């Protein structure tokens, strides 16, 4: 069964139309990633409506190509303009742009490309080995385990998202509340319909995600009118690093790939955190930490390897548990719904061909990125010269079409605009939007698993802790939340200020 599914996945992946979709996805991802402000979640959301009439394998070939390449694309504007195309490329700015100003732009772009591809392939390998194992393990999960996993996911997203923990958890609660509209599927009662029949099936997931990520970004881009960015007269030609220099930086390369993959597995805004963590690790372990920020090659290689390795990492909880590992992965969950599939442990048995095609497809996409990335960098001069407000009208139109095509009704467009306005307001007030989106995705799972757990236990809450898996997750959650305050308290008692050593 498994080899058959693998062979079938491989034959579908290598079909000419599928290869074209992958190449198209990588190209779109590179272009969108290069444009400052438009990151992977937006790139994936604007492509969602095009997947309606594609098979699942074709749809994911396109979307994964977009996702992987958009993470890489952010590095080009970070290096050439000192403006990170995506949050994930923020850590690349210092050394990448310093190298560019020293006339070593080609070298920096080459390091970013090779690092991204290495990170992407590394995380694809980890995904291929861990996802089937985790899915086999997770298939035994009952409501109690799912409840623990969901609570863990929601609270961790609030914890690791940028901004304060309070604001993160508040946004997750708002996201979860928004899932209570419509029919209660456990007993058929209705909630918060406000006289609109469209609300029977709840707020449309894709419309909310498009609004929160893409429309809010469109409003952000509308704020400032920018002129043509000046990147000087330097030509954008990539200089790939030699094997010798890569071998010299092997420790940073492998360490960053591991950090990125692990951070990607934890739900939240993985790519940016993974990139910063591996940058600081590369600096900490370097023989010349003083060179970081002045154009150190490892300062480009480490964050770029890490941010692309979060892609495969983020897919581990997404595919096996249905819990998105990143905002873009939350949008990918919407793509599963479009295809009539539910991401989770049953995906491996329900759609093994799709799972294998995702594993193998990620490899192929990263290999394609080498060729397309080189071309994209060469022609990115014209993309980076485009003032960001130029993309606003077209992105808005794509959002309209995307939201409309979910149910072929304009109500989804209205929901999308409402979510966009809300997303814009909360972003201006420094509330993170990832917990809002992930809370919205996980809300139904949390409610169902909680109520089913209570049903099974005849009303006893003690049953939540009767499962060893659930208990371990609650323990881990307590550790994550209490570790820092306890450590600070111990340090204060010892007389050393916590701030001095706090990370």
């Amino acid at each position, binding site marked *: 069964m498994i080899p058959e599914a693998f062979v079938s996945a491989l034959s579908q992946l290598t079909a000419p139309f599928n290869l074209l979709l992958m190449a198209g996805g990588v190209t779109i991802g590179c272009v969108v990633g290069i444009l400052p402000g438009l990151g992977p979640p937006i790139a994936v959301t604007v492509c969602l409506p095009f997947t309606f009439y594609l098979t699942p394998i074709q749809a994911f070939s396109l979307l994964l190509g977009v996702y992987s390449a958009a993470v890489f694309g952010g590095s080009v504007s970070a290096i050439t303009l000192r403006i990170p195309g995506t949050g994930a490329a923020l850590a690349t700015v210092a050394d990448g742009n310093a190298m560019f100003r020293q006339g070593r732009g080609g070298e920096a772009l080459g390091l970013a490309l090779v690092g991204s591809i290495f990170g992407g392939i590394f995380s694809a390998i980890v995904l291929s080995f861990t996802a089937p194992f985790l899915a086999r393990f997770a298939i035994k999960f009952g409501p109690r385990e799912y409840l623990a996993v969901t609570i863990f996911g929601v609270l961790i997203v609030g914890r690791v998202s940028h901004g304060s923990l309070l604001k993160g958890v508040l946004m997750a609660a708002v996201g979860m509340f928004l899932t209570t509209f419509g029919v209660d599927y456990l*007993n058929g009662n209705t909630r918060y319909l406000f006289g609109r029949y469209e609300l029977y099936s709840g707020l449309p997931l894709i419309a909310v995600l498009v609004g929160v990520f893409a429309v809010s970004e469109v409003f952000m881009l*509308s704020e400032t009118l920018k002129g043509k960015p000046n990147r000087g007269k330097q030509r954008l030609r990539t200089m790939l690093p030699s094997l010798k220099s890569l071998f010299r930086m092997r420790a940073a390369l492998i360490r960053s790939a591991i950090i990125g993959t692990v951070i990607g597995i934890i739900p939240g805004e993985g790519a940016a955190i993974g990139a910063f963590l591996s940058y600081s690790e590369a600096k900490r372990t370097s023989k010349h930490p003083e060179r970081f920020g002045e154009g150190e090659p490892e300062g480009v290689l480490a964050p770029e390897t890490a941010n692309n390795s979060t892609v495969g990492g983020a897919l581990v909880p997404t595919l096996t548990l249905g819990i998105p590992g990143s905002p873009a992965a939350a949008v990918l969950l919407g793509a599963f719904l479009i295809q009539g599939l539910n991401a989770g442990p049953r995906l491996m048995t329900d759609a093994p061909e799709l799972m294998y095609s995702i594993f193998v497809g990620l490899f192929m996409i990263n290999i394609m990125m080498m060729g397309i990335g080189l071309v994209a960098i060469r022609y990115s001069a014209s993309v980076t010269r485009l003032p960001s407000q130029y993309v606003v009208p077209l992105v808005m139109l794509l959002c309209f079409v995307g939201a409309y095509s979910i149910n072929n009704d*304009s109500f989804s467009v209205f929901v999308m605009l409402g979510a966009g306005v809300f997303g814009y307001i909360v972003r201006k007030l420094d509330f993170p939007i990832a917990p809002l989106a992930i809370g919205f995705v996980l*809300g139904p799972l949390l409610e169902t698993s909680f109520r089913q757990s209570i049903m099974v236990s005849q009303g006893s809450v003690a049953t939540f802790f009767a499962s060893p898996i659930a208990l371990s997750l609650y323990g881990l959650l307590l550790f994550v939340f209490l570790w820092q305050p306890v450590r600070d308290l111990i340090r204060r008692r010892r007389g050393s200020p916590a701030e001095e050593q706090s990370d």
Partner: protein
Amino acid sequence: LTKRTLTVVFCSVLIVASVLLFIQALGFEAKAINTRTPGTRFFPIVTLSAIVAFSGAVIVKELRDGARSAGSGGEALGLSREQVLRVVLVAATAFLAYFLWDLLGFLPMAYIMVAGTTIILKIRSVWAYGVMAVAVVALYFIFKALEIPLD
């Protein structure tokens, strides 16, 4: 207006809205018949309570931070009147387009929205207008080919 003031206002609005929705939730089924399973009202009540609690905590934190840094009102929102006006106009154009879609159909709506937004954002390039005009028609026909009727 500072971010602190606006955050307090925003969280206060969230609390008021949550209380109103909470009252509405009390009218939902409390418990499933013949079981001890929480009913339809359970999850809205839990999430709304969480929203009230965390909004209150954010307000307290903001006010405490404000009291600590007496004299400074906190970080400014960083938006000029012109920028606010531009965002409001882009949003208004989008809402207008939404209402026009059912009345006029996709193509007129799309042209009104794209042209309106382009003018608001002071895009003067003829090339940009040309590319956008072609893109609207292309999008319409792509979706027609995909059998997704946009009208």
